[in-house]
């Protein structure tokens, strides 16, 4: 319906700033976007990619003349359909928003008003801007619900947001954006908050809807593999500046800039699988656990896994699969209802309080959120030094020397010894947590989603460090994650969990080799690959399978 080749959005030398109010200090101005320019043709999709703080959401919202939380456009022009929307004030912008440009947020669950029915919110903009009548808009909304493969498209609109699942809400929000037939939709990380098996469906629905309606889109994400599936062009951003801008094919297959190359090759770590040893370090046998006592909700059901010396067991699963509960059961935080835990051939007491100091020392833990895993009132010296003092009685200079050694091992250096956690970057915090675990000289470290809160390049660095430390110290990892790319990079054996049970378990090569069980197949085929056309292949593969069944 749109004339391809015609320029829809033309952003020239965009500068965006904000005022930050550090408590107790004078307010100061900061720059978020620094001179970004690009054009977008009608019906095309531009992917904006970058790590947190790159300014990608801010740029997306600027196409609607909107600044979130005190953010101001301080320079440059935003031409939409040939006119500068920044000139003309709020009245002009209000006619653009919801009519010419619509927005799909990361968390649809928060973006829908809990007090109104979905259908009322979906048709609101179309009716308000006089695009069509209420009844026509409702008809259109129901068609869109159907096109986006929502269940019961005639009636789902009568529900309230909290009555619909997250993946469905995200599609309803896409329908809401499409309802007023805009020229441009801004997708702001629309699938980031979803589980991987849900993400693929939403992604396919969005791509399909874009193709059918011929709407142009800005697709914002931090995941290059995702953006490669939906975009015609990709722009890589860092610290509010453009790093590289090209066709999706060029960016993925022949990146020019070092930063882009690093993003493309992320998690392409090559890890040789090791053979299992005769006696495992940890054996968890037939573990069953529940929250709220024996009559509570069962979250782990008859799980048996082993971790071998100097090797990594990756425990994979989506939210609610019980993978973190497994860690809590092993550490004794949640004593299992049944089953046994054997460490180096001796049985571990189920409850934390009955374990010996040495048992506790041998199993250490690293958390997802490094900033809450460290006491903000302790310096790095105390954080790493306390296990040394507690387990080995080290004091004073001896302890400080060992802390400095550990800081070298995590590639930070002793200059950090007197810093507080708040004075470290995200990656450095996670490194200090690794050093704290290492200080106890454990045989097993449980890593609970240790890289999921980090930007991809930083996460890559942490994974490399963990592999390197395994080589030097011979420590074993039980690595909990939802990310299969990470699993490929580090695992020797894999346990796939689904609804509290083991769906598949074995060495990495066995688990990742067909034939698969239904869930493993679904999971593996849902993980986006850094390859143009992956989404179509994956969806086609599924259709064939369901046709074959």
């Amino acid at each position: 319906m749109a004339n391809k080749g015609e320029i829809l959005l033309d952003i020239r030398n965009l500068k965006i700033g904000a005022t930050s109010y550090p408590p107790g200090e004078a307010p100061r101005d900061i720059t978020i976007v620094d001179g970004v320019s690009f054009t977008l043709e009608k019906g095309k999709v531009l992917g904006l990619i970058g790590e947190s703080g790159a300014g990608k959401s801010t740029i997306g919202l600027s196409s609607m003349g909107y600044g979130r939380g005190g953010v101001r456009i301080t320079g440059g022009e935003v031409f939409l359909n040939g006119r500068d929307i920044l000139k003309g004030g709020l009245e002009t912008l209000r006619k653009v928003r919801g009519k010419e440009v619509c927005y799909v947020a990361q968390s649809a669950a928060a973006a829908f008003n809990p007090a109104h029915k979905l259908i009322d919110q979906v048709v609101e903009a179309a009716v308000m801007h006089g695009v069509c009548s209420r009844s026509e808009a409702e008809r259109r909304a129901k068609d869109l619900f159907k096109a986006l493969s929502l269940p019961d498209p005639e009636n789902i609109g009568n529900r309230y947001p909290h009555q619909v699942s997250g993946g469905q809400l995200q599609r309803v929000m896409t329908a809401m954006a499409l309802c007023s037939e805009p020229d441009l939709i801004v997708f702001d990380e629309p699938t980031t908050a979803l589980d991987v098996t849900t993400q693929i469906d939403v992604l396919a629905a969005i791509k399909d809807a874009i193709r059918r309606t011929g709407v142009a889109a800005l697709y914002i994400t931090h995941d290059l593999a995702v953006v490669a599936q939906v975009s015609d062009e990709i722009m890589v951003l860092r610290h509010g500046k453009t790093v590289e801008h090209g066709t999706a094919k060029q960016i993925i297959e022949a990146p020019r800039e070092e930063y882009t190359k690093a993003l493309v090759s992320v998690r392409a770590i090559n890890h040789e699988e090791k053979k299992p040893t005769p006696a495992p370090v940890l054996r968890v046998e037939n573990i069953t656990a529940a929250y709220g006592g024996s009559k509570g909700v069962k979250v782990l059901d008859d799980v048996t896994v082993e971790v071998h010396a100097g090797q990594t067991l990756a425990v994979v699963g989506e939210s609610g699969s019980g993978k973190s509960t497994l860690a809590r059961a092993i550490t004794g935080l949640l004593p299992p209802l049944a089953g046994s835990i054997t460490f180096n051939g001796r049985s571990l007491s189920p409850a934390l309080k009955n374990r010996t100091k040495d048992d506790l020392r041998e199993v250490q833990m690293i958390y997802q959120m490094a900033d809450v895993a460290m006491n903000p009132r302790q310096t790095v010296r105390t954080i790493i030094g306390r296990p040394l003092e507690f387990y080995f009685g080290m004091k004073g200079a001896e302890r400080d020397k060992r802390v400095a050694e550990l800081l070298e091992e995590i590639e930070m250096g002793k200059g950090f010894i007197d810093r507080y956690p708040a004075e470290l970057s995200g990656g450095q915090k996670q490194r200090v947590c690794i050093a704290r675990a290492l200080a106890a000289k454990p045989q097993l470290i449980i890593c609970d989603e240790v890289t999921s809160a980090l930007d991809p390049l930083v996460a890559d660095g942490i994974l490399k460090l963990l592999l390197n430390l395994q080589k030097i110290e011979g420590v074993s990892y039980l690595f909990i994650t939802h990310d299969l790319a990470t699993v490929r990079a580090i695992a020797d054996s894999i346990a796939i969990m689904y609804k509290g049970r083991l769906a598949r378990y074995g060495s990495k090569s066995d688990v990742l080799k067909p034939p698969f069980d239904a869930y493993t197949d679904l999971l593996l085929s849902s993980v986006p690959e850094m390859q143009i056309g992956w989404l179509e292949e994956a969806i086609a593969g599924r259709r064939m399978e369901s046709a074959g069944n």
Partner: protein
Amino acid sequence: MGSSILKLLAQRISLGLLLLLAVSVLIFAGTQILPGDVAQSILGQSATPEALANLRRDLGLNDPAYVRYFNWLGGVLTGDLGTALTNGADISSSIGKRLFNTVFLASVAAVVSVPLAILLGLLAVRYRNRWPDKLISGATLASISLPEFFIGYLLIYFVAVKLGWFPSVSTVYDGMGFADRLKAVALPAATLTLVVLAHMMRMTRAAILNVMQSAYIETAELKGQSSFQVIARHAFPNALAPIVNVVMLNLAYLIVGVVVVEVIFIYPGMGQYLVDHVAKRDVPVVQACGLVFAAFFIGLNLIADVVAIITNPRLRHPK
């Protein structure tokens, strides 16, 4: 649909009644079991043992505590609050008239302060981090630090004595006209308003800000709605419960503030009545007043919770 919500409401209301019952036990225990003898208090240190014994018998003090409690509770439930020790007057009828005066004063203060506080709270949100907002947080800081009697006597000193606009003593009597009554309570109502205004303003501000920072408000703005549409359609339905909560909390605070303010302006209400009889150690009156105040306090909190339950879409439309 409504069944779960009715169940919750029934639960919350019965909890309120249970709390009130527990409070009645606490008030009774607080006045009966603690050291100090009512008979001794009434007759003074020079009383003869016979007189003390007689009075104890007349007051039923020789019965065990729980018997006396249930006698008292039975009376309360049938509207009989007993008689005052000091003058033998019927407490229920004394309280009736005074309760009306107190509720009148508190209502006048509420009618002025609630809309004003909500309006100013909205202004503070509108001009966040600018001078009107800073003025409001400054005023709040000052107002929670000022004793009621400081505000009250300042008003008396300047408005009543120096300017002569309003009487310094709030005299009311039966058959007084509404306009005269309003004039009489002008200064105490103003004092109460000043006491709760800043606090209510700041809490309203926080409640509205909380709603205005929600993602769905941004969604509405990105649909191109005007600020009025955003507030009326998207903010208001969600802000209602928190604002009602703020108002109820502050009304509860008003009811307590009334005690000191009535003494300042010598206003014949519940607070004045309570304070007089505490000084005279007239236990039945104190118990009755304490219970009435606590009932108001619990009742206002109950209303806030009920509104929160009724306006919650998750409860109104369960999965």
